[in-house]
């Protein structure tokens, strides 16, 4: 009788719990639970379903390797579709060089430059347009939770629409050419950029903002002096990343006539000028690499 009372005393059951916990913690491998088994089954099912739906087949891929090789062979040697222009030499050089100099350059170069210009203007526009959305889409700066929810939803809708659809819309609005592409980049980037900015704003240390608020500053002042300095390095870094993204993205907007290098690339593909295509790709890769390097360099200085 006495031992039974002892067994149920609080001190004893606490010791028992401790011993159980110790045994549990000693297990080198986690206990297999029903939840874990279910999770593994679901994951396997998702993969099986996706493989089934996409006809992923290693054997077919192996069989297709000669075709890849054949295509690659047709890309070489790369050819630069040259164009010439007459350069009017300045007067003091004319005695030397003659009045006009023929200069040869790959025909794609002006289009690559145009693509970069589109990305510069499009991204800058997107940055300006994204800031107000970012404020409303960050939990710690949105005035009301419902505004936060609605803004996030709008941004998600924007993100779900491919840039090329925006390009189609704006080409219809402002006509063929790079302006439509710029508009597409500016509007099409808001969803992603505002979301990234919002993440940067949410990642700040609220204590510092609180300290600025405690001085008697207004919400807007606290934002400028407490939030912006903290969020700026990350937001600027995201902006540069998005600029790089837009340079790449702008290369395909030409497919629908929205300017940039995509128009020429489509032409080369349609006319089977694969060697010219390879020449264009080389120049695009060089350009994108240079831009990535510059942007990397700037980003490192910002953080």
């Amino acid at each position, binding site marked *: 009788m006495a031992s039974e009372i002892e067994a149920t005393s609080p001190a004893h059951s606490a010791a028992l719990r*401790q011993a159980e*916990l*110790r045994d549990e*913690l*000693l*297990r*080198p*491998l986690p206990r297999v639970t029903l939840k874990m088994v279910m999770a593994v089954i679901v994951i396997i099912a998702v993969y099986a379903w996706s493989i089934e739906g996409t006809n992923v087949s290693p054997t077919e891929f192996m069989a297709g390797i000669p075709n890849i090789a054949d295509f690659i062979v047709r890309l070489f040697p790369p050819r630069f579709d040259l164009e010439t222009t007459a350069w009017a030499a300045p007067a003091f050089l004319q005695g030397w060089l003659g009045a006009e100099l023929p200069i040869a350059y790959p025909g794609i170069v002006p289009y690559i430059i145009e693509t970069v210009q589109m990305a510069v203007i499009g991204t800058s526009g997107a940055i300006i347009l994204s800031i107000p959305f970012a404020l409303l889409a960050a939990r710690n700066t949105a005035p009301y939770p419902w505004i936060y929810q609605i803004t996030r939803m709008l941004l998600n809708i924007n993100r779900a629409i491919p840039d090329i659809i925006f390009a189609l819309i704006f080409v219809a609005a402002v006509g063929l050419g790079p302006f439509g592409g710029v508009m597409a980049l500016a509007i099409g980037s808001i969803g992603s950029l505002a979301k990234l900015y919002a993440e940067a704003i949410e990642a700040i240390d609220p204590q510092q903002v609180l300290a600025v608020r405690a001085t008697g500053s207004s919400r807007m002042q606290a934002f400028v002096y407490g939030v912006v300095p903290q969020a700026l390095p990350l937001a600027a870094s995201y902006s540069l990343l998005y600029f790089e993204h837009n340079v790449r993205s702008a290369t395909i907007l030409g497919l629908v006539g929205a300017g940039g290098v995509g128009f020429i690339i489509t032409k080369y593909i349609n006319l089977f000028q694969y060697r010219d295509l390879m020449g264009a790709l080389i120049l695009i890769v060089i350009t994108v690499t240079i831009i990535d390097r510059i942007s990397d360099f700037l980003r490192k200085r910002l953080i």
Partner: protein
Amino acid sequence: MSLLTIQNLSMVYANGHRALTSVSFTAEAGEIIAIIGRSGAGKSTLLRCINGLQRPTGGQIILDGDDVTQKSEAEWYQTRRQIGFIWQEYNLVDRLPVLTNVLTGRLGYTNGWGSLAGFFDRSHRAIAIRNLERVNLLERANQRADKLSGGEKQRVAIARAMSQEPKVLLADEPVASLDPELSMQVMGDLARVAREDNVLTLINLHQVPVAKAFADRVIGIARGEVVFNGLPSELDDVALDQIYRFDKLSSQAPSKQPAYA
């Protein structure tokens, strides 16, 4: 032979800042030594040199008969597991559970792929669990480290350091972020486990009363040199003036206010 012998240790940073001029002392296993001095006196630099986070520019640190200043970074990996470190800001990995944080103290003893996959066998776990029990936090084993209070975090950090089964424990301002009451509790835990395992413990401290309450010996550092090395009871106003008010000392008697007593 002493467990730890430091001879003429000096540290000059690349920017010319002279953190340690010439520090020498010896310490035995199981001793608890408080190191006191003003901010910038070189206390942190001293601890960082002892566990190889910083390379001293001169002098010797002889740990267990082994001159650690001559070690390459690869050799340091082997040495560091013998030296536990406790930080002012705890430096637990916030997103990991408490027990995993304590188990990181065992990483120096596990080199296999298993440890990279989160696998620790029963012997390692038993050591971690025992140390967590010693600081009374076994109930929190499965919680994420960022759910703990400051005092609890520092006790987990003590359990982590003790799981290294160290010969030397270094603590850099371990209670500077805690209130006086918690400071005493955490220092009590630290001193208790260190004495139980006979671990030499060097603690940088700002609070002189705390140093007096827990240390076997006090070393005072000023301007990169040892200016006091003795029993806590010998730490009088003259000594405190030399440690803390050397720049205001006139050639005569010590100042009258015992501000640090």
